[in-house]
């Protein structure tokens, strides 16, 4: 099989473009450069072409151009249905393809897996997925073997991405903004801005979650790789930001800190259990994390005090409402 000129799918402005490196020594070696870190459409098209040409996985080099991530935000393409193709999908898409590319049937599960794994930060993700695709085609038993090494690896990568998504849903903290730069547009209430550092390329995938949750709120999430803003109607993606671009604590945040301090039970200090679910690397962006060391240090003392304290004599009367006489912090921490 000779080196063939790549066909660009002109109908698809955002599609990945296979760029074959000039490597005469390995005539069948292909180098694919995708447009951006999470170019799932480009990956699917390239993979479909490579399969049609029967290029073995070890003869393909994948380049995601993670550094071109910013270009990506021109296209918030979440199209998920076709390319690698459930049967028939290729027919409707880019007629030029339909003639040559045989219908490639893969389990629906595999498509989902691709969509998740592709968000992973590991540069080897495309190679792994293409290898799995190749093997699914040539080793019929593979789809019944969840313990196959490649499948296990892909599953672990998918899980890492899902965990990152889950933690981002949990640990993003919005602050209302006083700064003029953020006091935007006429409509709507205050702007809510958060700074977060995800491990994988998940911002695009997660943005709809926040849009559906905070539909009537104007908000923005800034991350090093990109940022996303919701104006109440549409999501807008933009370039990455720095932590300094995010606002400092606002006036109301101390209530949340008060709650965190008070809901902690010093009689059952379990820092390891906490860190298992809220690893240290998230702490720098969680306002409440600054309290942890102090609370932990004071815990033994506080719970020892509870035990040493002699029991008080029971009273059988409801104390008169003393709403004004709120205890000072000192009184509380002694209790």
């Amino acid at each position: 099989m000779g080196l063939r000129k790549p066909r660009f799918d002109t109908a698809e402005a955002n599609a990945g473009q296979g760029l074959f490196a000039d490597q005469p020594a390995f005539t069948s070696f292909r180098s694919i450069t995708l447009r951006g870190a999470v170019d799932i459409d480009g990956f699917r098209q390239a993979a479909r072409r490579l399969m049609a040409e029967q290029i073995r996985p070890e003869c393909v080099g994948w380049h995601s151009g993670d550094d071109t991530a910013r270009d990506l935000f021109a296209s918030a393409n979440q199209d998920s249905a076709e390319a690698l193709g459930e049967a028939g999908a290729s027919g409707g898409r880019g007629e030029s393809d339909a003639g040559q590319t045989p219908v490639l049937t893969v389990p629906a599960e595999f498509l989902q897996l691709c969509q998740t794994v592709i968000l992973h930060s590991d540069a080897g993700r495309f190679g792994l997925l293409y290898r799995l695709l190749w093997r699914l085609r040539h080793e019929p038993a593979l789809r019944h073997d969840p313990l196959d090494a490649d499948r296990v690896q892909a599953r672990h990568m998918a899980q890492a991405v899902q965990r990152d998504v889950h933690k981002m849903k949990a640990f993003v903290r919005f602050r209302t903004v006083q700064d003029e730069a953020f006091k935007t547009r006429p409509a709507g209430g205050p702007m809510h801005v958060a700074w977060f550092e995800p491990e994988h390329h998940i911002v695009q995938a997660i943005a709809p979650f926040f849009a559906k949750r905070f539909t009537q709120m104007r908000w923005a999430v800034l991350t090093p790789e990109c940022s996303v803003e919701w104006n109440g109607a549409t999501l807008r993606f933009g370039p990455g930001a720095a932590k300094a671009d995010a606002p400092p604590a606002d006036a109301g945040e101390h209530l949340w800190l008060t709650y965190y301090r008070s809901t902690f039970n010093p009689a059952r200090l379990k820092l390891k259990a906490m860190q298992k679910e809220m690893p240290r690397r998230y702490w720098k962006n969680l306002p409440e994390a600054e309290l942890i060391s102090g609370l932990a240090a004071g815990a033994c003392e506080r719970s020892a005090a509870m035990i040493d304290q002699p029991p008080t004599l029971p009273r059988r009367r409801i104390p008169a409402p003393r709403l004004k006489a709120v205890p000072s912090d000192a009184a509380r921490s002694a209790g």
Partner: protein
Amino acid sequence: MSIHHQLASKLAILADAAKYDASCASSGTSQRDSVGGKGIGSTEGSGICHSYAPDGRCISLLKILLTNFCRYDCLYCVNRVSSNVPRARFRVDEVVQLTLDFYRRNCIEGLFLSSGIIQSPDYTMELLVEVARSLREDHDFRGYIHLKTIPDASPDLLARAGLHADRLSINVELPTVEGLQALAPEKDGVAIRRSMAQLRIGIDDAKAAAGDARRSQIVSLPRSLVVRRATPPRFAPGGQSTQMIVGADATDDRTILQASASLYSAYRLRRVYYSAFSPIPDASARLPLRRPPLLREHRLYQADWLMRFYGFAHDEIVPGAGGMLALAMDPKLAWALGHREQFPVDLNSAARELLLRVPGLGIKAVTRILQSRRGRKLRAADLLRLHVPLKRVLPFVLLADHHPGASLDAPGLASRLAPAPAQAGLFDVSDAAASSSSLGLPAPTGLTGAAASARRSTAPELSWA
């Protein structure tokens, strides 16, 4: 004192007073979001834990009391009338605003509201319901709401609570009615169970009505353009749960599990929470001042899991005499060691029920084993890829290239698999956490519904000890 300051002081008191309730689940309710609404909020199948306190517990909901004034004198409770803790009371709108504010910050999934009993059960319940109503109707809040139900509140109030809340719960407090009588003389164990029965009927009815509405064919008549069926009224789509305190009286583990089993089956609870009695400020003289080991609570959660997901009956989990679960090893391993005649289990042929009894194999691992073995014989290397604890699993299983031989019957097996933990001092708390992680188990606090369901969907299978 500024308004902000005053609110913070109340919050400190009323969050402190509410923290002895273990439940923090925000999972299992209907899915919804705020698209097309006037407010904020969404729920998914699995809950989200937005933070973790240094006690290892997840913070998913704003968990507070409306007030910690209380008429009752339940000895185990920090808010009993005879306790000298500082008291406070929120206004309804203060709770509503706090909930919305924390939610906007993405600090919580919603509200878990409980209260001391003031004036009368109905009066108190009415206030709780009003908070939920205001959140839902005045602010179109679509996040999670868990209301603690006051036993003896009127059926009408329960119905209104179910309309707005995702989950309702009534604490049985102590595993036995007699225990409750001794420590909480004003509480009526029978009435608590009666209210739980009422909630179950409400939940079942709403479910059935929703099912009917889905199934029934809509026949449009000539000239009618849109045929719309009224949505059946909702009632606590997240179900009900309860909590019992462990270690405040002498009830043994067998009795506790028996009580749980009957609660699960009689009232179809989503969860029973176990809360190790912990020292409280201003404790009553009639209570043990020392707490039970936190590990006991952990073992009870593990046993609870065995009943609900692993096909164990409540009466086969606690071994022989004594009535207590072993602290040194988890109940599944203890059962396997006590029933060695059932092993080794052949992973290439045994039925699912038997695979679930193998120490170290979790539900997902079992599912993968069943899938994989259709195509080929499983070998020891496959267990490695399953990420299960080999040391624990191998003595109990047969594989194409593995036979445990005499190791299964070796007398030292128990001590090899579960080395006696160093005697934990009273404050040597990290010990409990450490031993739970070495078992490959979720930490006890990780077992709250939200965390557990979150894990089910995202994390690799947690191998069951």
